[in-house]
């Protein structure tokens, strides 16, 4: 076990542990901050996989954007001071059955899949290849997505103005 393995396990532990805390903690704001840690852990794992672009996008989009919006949402919809923001547990049994089923499917998929291990080095940098692919092979998909996001933006703005 070399040092990279140890770092991986630290990140993995942080990810899984904080993800667990997200669902078990009863304080919504704590949950949001645990989610931040989860995303951060995932970012670390991406870095270990030398997927640096994805890692940083993860950091920007999730940590910087979605999480902040989440916190805004939490804060603006509740009393803010001197109130313990807590959620109750509803419908424990149906949830347990659903989660159990889903976990079963996942585990069986994990066990029954034949994992292929590819040989060869991971690329030193992913950015150039990614840019090249996006601008050549997948240009239409890229453009369509861009237009879609623009439409969503304009729509959101027009709804907000009403």
């Amino acid at each position, binding site marked *: 076990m070399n*040092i990279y393995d140890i770092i991986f396990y630290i990140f993995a532990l942080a990810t899984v542990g904080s993800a667990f805390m997200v669902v078990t903690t009863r304080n919504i*704001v704590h949950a949001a901050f645990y989610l931040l840690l989860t995303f951060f852990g995932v970012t670390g794992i991406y870095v270990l996989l030398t997927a640096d672009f994805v890692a*940083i996008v993860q950091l*920007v989009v999730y*940590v*910087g954007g979605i999480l*902040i919006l989440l916190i805004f949402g939490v804060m603006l919809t509740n009393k803010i001071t001197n109130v313990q923001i807590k959620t109750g547990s509803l419908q424990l049994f149906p949830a347990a059955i659903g989660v159990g089923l889903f976990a079963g499917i996942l585990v069986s998929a994990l066990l029954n899949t034949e994992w292929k291990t590819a040989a060869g080095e991971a690329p030193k940098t992913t*950015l150039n290849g990614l840019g090249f692919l996006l601008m050549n092979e997948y240009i239409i998909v890229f453009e369509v997505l861009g237009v879609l996001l623009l439409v969503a933006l304009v729509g959101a703005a027009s709804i907000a103005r009403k």
Partner: protein
Amino acid sequence: MIYDFLLKLTGSEIAAGFIQSLLPLFVFILPFALFAVLLERKVSAHMQDRLGPMRTGYHGILQTVADIIKLVQKEDIVPTNSDKPLFNIAPVLVFTGSYAAFAAIPFSSAFIGSNIDLGLFFIVAVSGLVVAGILMAGWASNNKYTLLGAMRSAAQVISYEIPTMLVILTIVMMTGTLNLTTLSELQTGYFWNWMILGGPVAGLVKLAFIPSMFIGFVIIYISTLAEVNRTPFDIPEAESELVSGYHTEYSGMKFAMFFLAEYANMFAVSAIVAAVFFGGYQSPIGYLGNTLDILWLIPIEQFFWFTFKGVFFVFVQMWLRWTLPRLRVDQLMALCWKYLIPIAFVNLLIVGLITVL
């Protein structure tokens, strides 16, 4: 370079990486913060017709040291009804965010924490952590003023990231790289190769770039001012409205960490501006090391030039702080969304057109 040297010295990747990651903190951030606080005081004092600290050491140069000693000795107060774990983590998170940015800042061709291809993008991304820390601090203090400050800060930083990114995108269009070292190397030679003066292209195209580059520089400088909450965009800690914003409830070392993070951030954003538009670590007038044929002198000169440029932009930040009043929240947002972003967009299009043609 430093890394290779350390690798040879210690013989272990881990130790080398560890020492290298600590270098910016001890070699740069702490001395810089000490210096910058003193600079801020002296700059403000001389702008206001007074002397500033004069008693501790010659012309008060030890004032910051005395302050640090005072802050370390201070009682660490945790408000009773605060959210204690978050309250304690927040300053660490804020400092982590600003410290992480230093990993990708090229102090010289031989001294860069991590020479990654996504350098610029990385710096912008990790500043998001600072916002999370500020929000955490504001919420955990359980105080309306801190919460308002934190909310303002989050809204402000997220908004101003957009023009920053747009300007960075124009640079990417021109140069085709996000790597700060490559960016600096591109601007090598003399100061007319700096991006602000059109970059290392030749001929009439260069002239066409200059206005766009200048606009881009102004936009990114304003946005970075807003991202580090400096006047005239210091509304998250507007002392006349929100007492002192998100760090109202902090004292002692935790306050010192916010303080340190603020000054580290100031330098980090100044460094981005310097690296992108003002040649990074490149000297404007050529190197003494080249003339004298002493090659090891060049990285040291580069370090000097980079620090000089960074400190100059920090000085401009202070200059603005002690001159301008503060904007209101809605005006701040209007400035970002109604002026900076559209201008940055148009600028991006123009640069794109020039590049394509």
